[in-house]
């Protein structure tokens, strides 16, 4: 057997090689690469299961519920999991949930979401739909029916722009919020208060660690943390005033459409806004924006028609809050503010008098540019108060020239414009900081801005007309109704520029106040109480005997003092004038309680459309004051 023993050695050698191969591989798997496998093993078995908290509710100043939660059975589809029979699955879901197929398809194809997200496609489906889908899992890959709480609005369309809406977190938001513990299928505030107070309203997710086996069955449940409901929001907004302001605005717009513009076309009055501020705190009592919408559309998911109406309408979609998200030429409502600026800079005096001619030419201007008053009649010399009362443009035009000359001396350096600086003190060209999303800042034109717009200014050079037009609230200056309201509130309260706010306090689930939204009125405007009082008095004359006289005919101003300024702002030739009325009201003429700013796009004269709407809002604010009369005539002003 000598031969055999050497051959057995060959066999033994082969066996030894086997052991070497196995040991080497085991060394690699279990020693060198063990961390990776260990992580995978943990991922395999440990699952965190989250439970959604109940979102906080929203109440008005009187405790009326504006936004509540409602239970809904929701159908969600995860596009990634649909497989190759996606069309058939969507078809089945559409039929079952009674939703048009193309609505579902457009939701699933929405680029804002990731295909790995479970996208809600139908709300409030009957229980039977849930049972059917559960029983026919193989026919519905990627489809789940989930009981959930969705937003519900007891007052329907009321204050929709302010309340905002919620929706499925989109891919961009998820990238931001993931670190704060948000999941890919979370509902978040998208707009309005819902977006701004997201961190309070949301609450905290509950979570539980589960150990699951290969079939997904739970073997062990560890450390359950119940979800914490979100905080509630109590607003300074009053639902009653809000409702009546919305009604007044809508009715006023309808009325306006029966009037004609200068060339005989019916006014379009396609949109408008009303802002009611507490003059002393900046608390928003009402904020109406028309056209409106029903926020529950967002709960059900927008249909293509709704989406078009809200977002892509030619007149700028209905989802825009016209009080904060769009800016407009303020027209003559700007004059009290620019007039004060002229006084501050020494171009005008409250005791002086100034010529109100039919037309105005900048001194030494040979270009032939003329600025016309609303009437060609020379009204003679008048005080600032009278100029406000009759809304004389040419008085203010001359102050504009003074601002231009001052700019030419360049006292601020860096090409700075004095008028712009003075207007910044009133908060223009900056967001007010109101607790709403996507606020726009408007525009105060200045030499620096002109340099960037050679399409509007020859060689981008600043011209006298820049200051002259801003002076009368015309040209390129743009403000939001809320900015104007904030400025008027400063006139009303003696010089405090208060940051407007809609929420008053944040209330914890146990009823305690978690956070009070403090008033921010520290910022003051550089005018004396006497100067502001002078303006208030002048604006009362506007109502008593000026451009708003007709609109307030018969109003019991002895009980409720009303001071205001009409505005009729020209837009480009294709659009009709913007109708404005900015006002302050209250029993004490020297201490107005509220500021009301009304704006109607393509609404004609301020005294014609905006002022009567404001009157209706004042009636709403003071239900115990009898205002039996109606506007008696139409004042034409500019």
């Amino acid at each position, binding site marked *: 057997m000598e031969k055999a023993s050497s051959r057995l050695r*060959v*066999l033994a050698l082969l066996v030894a090689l086997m*052991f070497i191969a196995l040991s080497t591989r085991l060394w690699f798997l279990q020693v060198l690469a063990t961390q*990776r496998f260990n992580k995978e093993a943990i991922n395999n078995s440990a699952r965190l299961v989250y439970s959604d908290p109940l979102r906080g509710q929203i109440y008005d100043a009187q405790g009326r519920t504006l936004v509540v939660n409602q239970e809904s059975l929701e159908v969600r589809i995860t596009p990634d999991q649909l497989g190759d029979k996606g069309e058939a699955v969507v078809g089945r879901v559409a039929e079952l949930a009674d939703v048009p197929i193309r609505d579902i398809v457009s939701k699933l194809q929405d680029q804002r979401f990731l295909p790995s997200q479970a996208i809600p496609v139908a709300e409030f489906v009957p229980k039977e739909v849930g049972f059917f889908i559960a029983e026919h899992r193989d026919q519905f890959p990627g489809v789940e029916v989930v009981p959930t709480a969705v937003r519900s609005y007891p007052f329907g369309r009321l204050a929709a722009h302010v309340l905002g809406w919620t929706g499925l977190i989109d891919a961009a938001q998820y990238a931001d919020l993931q670190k704060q513990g948000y999941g890919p299928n979370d509902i978040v505030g998208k707009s309005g208060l819902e977006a701004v107070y997201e961190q309070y309203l949301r609450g905290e997710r509950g979570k539980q660690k589960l150990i699951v*086996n*290969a079939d997904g069955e739970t073997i062990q449940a560890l450390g359950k943390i119940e979800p914490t409901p979100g905080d509630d929001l109590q607003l300074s907004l009053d639902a009653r005033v809000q409702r009546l302001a919305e009604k007044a605005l809508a009715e006023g717009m309808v009325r306006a459409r029966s009037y004609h513009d200068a060339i005989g076309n019916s006014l379009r009055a396609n949109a408008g806004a009303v802002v009611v501020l507490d003059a002393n705190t900046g608390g928003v009592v009402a904020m109406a924006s028309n056209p409106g919408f029903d926020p529950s559309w967002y709960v059900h998911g927008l249909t293509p028609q709704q989406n078009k109406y809200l977002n892509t309408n030619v007149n700028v979609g209905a989802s825009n809050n016209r009080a904060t998200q769009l800016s407009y030429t303020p027209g003559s409502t700007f004059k009290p503010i620019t007039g004060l600026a002229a006084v501050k800079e020494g171009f005008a005096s409250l005791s002086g008098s100034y010529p109100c001619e039919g037309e105005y030419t900048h001194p030494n201007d040979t270009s032939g540019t003329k600025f016309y008053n609303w009437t060609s009649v020379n009204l003679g010399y008048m005080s600032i108060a009278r100029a406000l009362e009759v809304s004389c443009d040419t008085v203010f035009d001359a102050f504009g020239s003074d601002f231009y000359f001052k700019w030419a001396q360049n006292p601020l350096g860096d090409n700075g414009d004095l008028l712009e600086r003075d207007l910044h003190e009133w908060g223009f060209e900056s967001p007010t900081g109101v607790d709403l999303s996507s606020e726009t800042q408007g525009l105060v034109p200045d030499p620096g801005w002109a340099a960037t717009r050679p399409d509007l200014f020859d060689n981008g050079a600043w011209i006298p007309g820049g200051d002259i037009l801003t002076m009368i609230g015309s040209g390129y200056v743009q403000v939001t109704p809320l900015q104007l309201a904030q400025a008027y509130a400063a006139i009303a309260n003696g010089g405090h520029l208060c940051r407007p706010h809609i929420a008053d306090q944040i209330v914890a689930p146990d009823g305690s106040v978690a956070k009070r939204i403090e008033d921010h009125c520290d910022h003051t405007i550089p005018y004396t109480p006497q100067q502001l009082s002078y303006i208030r008095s002048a604006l009362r004359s506007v109502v008593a005997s000026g451009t708003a006289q007709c609109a307030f005919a018969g109003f019991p101003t002895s009980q409720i003092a009303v001071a205001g300024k009409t505005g009729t702002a020209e837009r480009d030739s294709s659009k009709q004038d913007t109708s404005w009325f900015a006002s302050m009201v209250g029993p004490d003429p020297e201490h107005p309680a509220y500021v009301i700013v009304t704006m109607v796009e393509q609404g004609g004269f301020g005294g014609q459309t905006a002022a009567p709407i404001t009157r209706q809002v004042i009636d709403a604010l003071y239900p115990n004051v009898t205002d039996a009369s109606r506007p008696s005539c139409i004042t034409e002003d500019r």
Partner: protein
Amino acid sequence: MDVVAGRAFADERRPIRHVDWLLLTITLGLSVVGLFLLYSATNQTLRQDGLDPFTRVSKQAFTIGLGLVVLIVMSSVDYRFFKVYAGFIYLGSLLALVLVRIPGIGATDTTGTAQRWFAFGGVQITPSEFCKLALIVMLAAVLSEIRTPEPTLADLVKMLGLAAVPLVLVFLQPDIGTSIGIAAIVVGMLIVAGTRLKHLLILSAVGVVLIGLVFQTGAIEDYQRARLVAFLDQPNASADVRYNLDQSLIAVGSGGLTGKGYLNGTQTNLDYVPEQHTDFIFTVAGEEFGFLGAIALLALFALLLWRSIRIAWMAKDPFGTYVAAGIASMFAIQMFVNIGMVIGIMPITGIPLPFLSYGGTSILVSFAGIGMLESIHMRRFT
């Protein structure tokens, strides 16, 4: 002791005095380790189904007991007896392989893909396992009759012919794992028989060509092809096919150096590794006892193979040497292919790990193999 010299000499040569106790200890050691691993692999699932967590362990323990009886019987029988009846044993095993293919006699697994066993009451008997031993005996009988210093080409062809019949029958079942086992046994025995390297190389080449042909003609099932493709092209394998291997690698890899501790393996306890109690039993050792445990288990197999090859070397006659070498080859290839597939260096073929995998026939055949080794060891002086 006052004894007659011749008598004393005869007594010293009595087979019972030459049992290889170490081999026996290793065999029992592996079996007991197997029971512990099996408990870990099955107790949670059984508990979940509301069954006694020891159900599988008791059944396996019973099989091991039966295996011990088989071992004792096989070792009591003089192995040379098998040489006499080698032809009958061989033909009998072929008959069983044919019968198992006949519907109504052979049983099919629930998926209907393979027809591999006879069902006697609740017991499944897999003839392909027994046919390995039958083939070893047959080949050993033929090889031991060769009088030339090394097998001639004619001998080689004869050997291959004998092996080809069961190999093809097993392959058609289809049972690729056992086919590989049979091929390895033949190669192992041919090496020991002194086959020239040239012939072995030609044989390997023919084997490779045949495997290629099998793939081309589609004689194997789709799932087997998928498994092999998955092995050869891992990154592109489908998720389903990869799952088994992935979970197996995670289990072994996450065990680390010292393991997660007995009954603490998450992959094991939570049922992530498919077929864990049968073909993938090694993952339990890998996950719960780590690298050190896995190496210890390999060491037990190394000892077993060392004793087997030692018996081949010590055997009194060429038949014993060949039988022992065949059995050693059988254990070696099963161990290597099984653990190799678990840790991803061999394709997944469905081959049990001797003494550890749950399953009656595999245990009984392994014990029978040890019994034959003992028989050869015990009778090396008689």
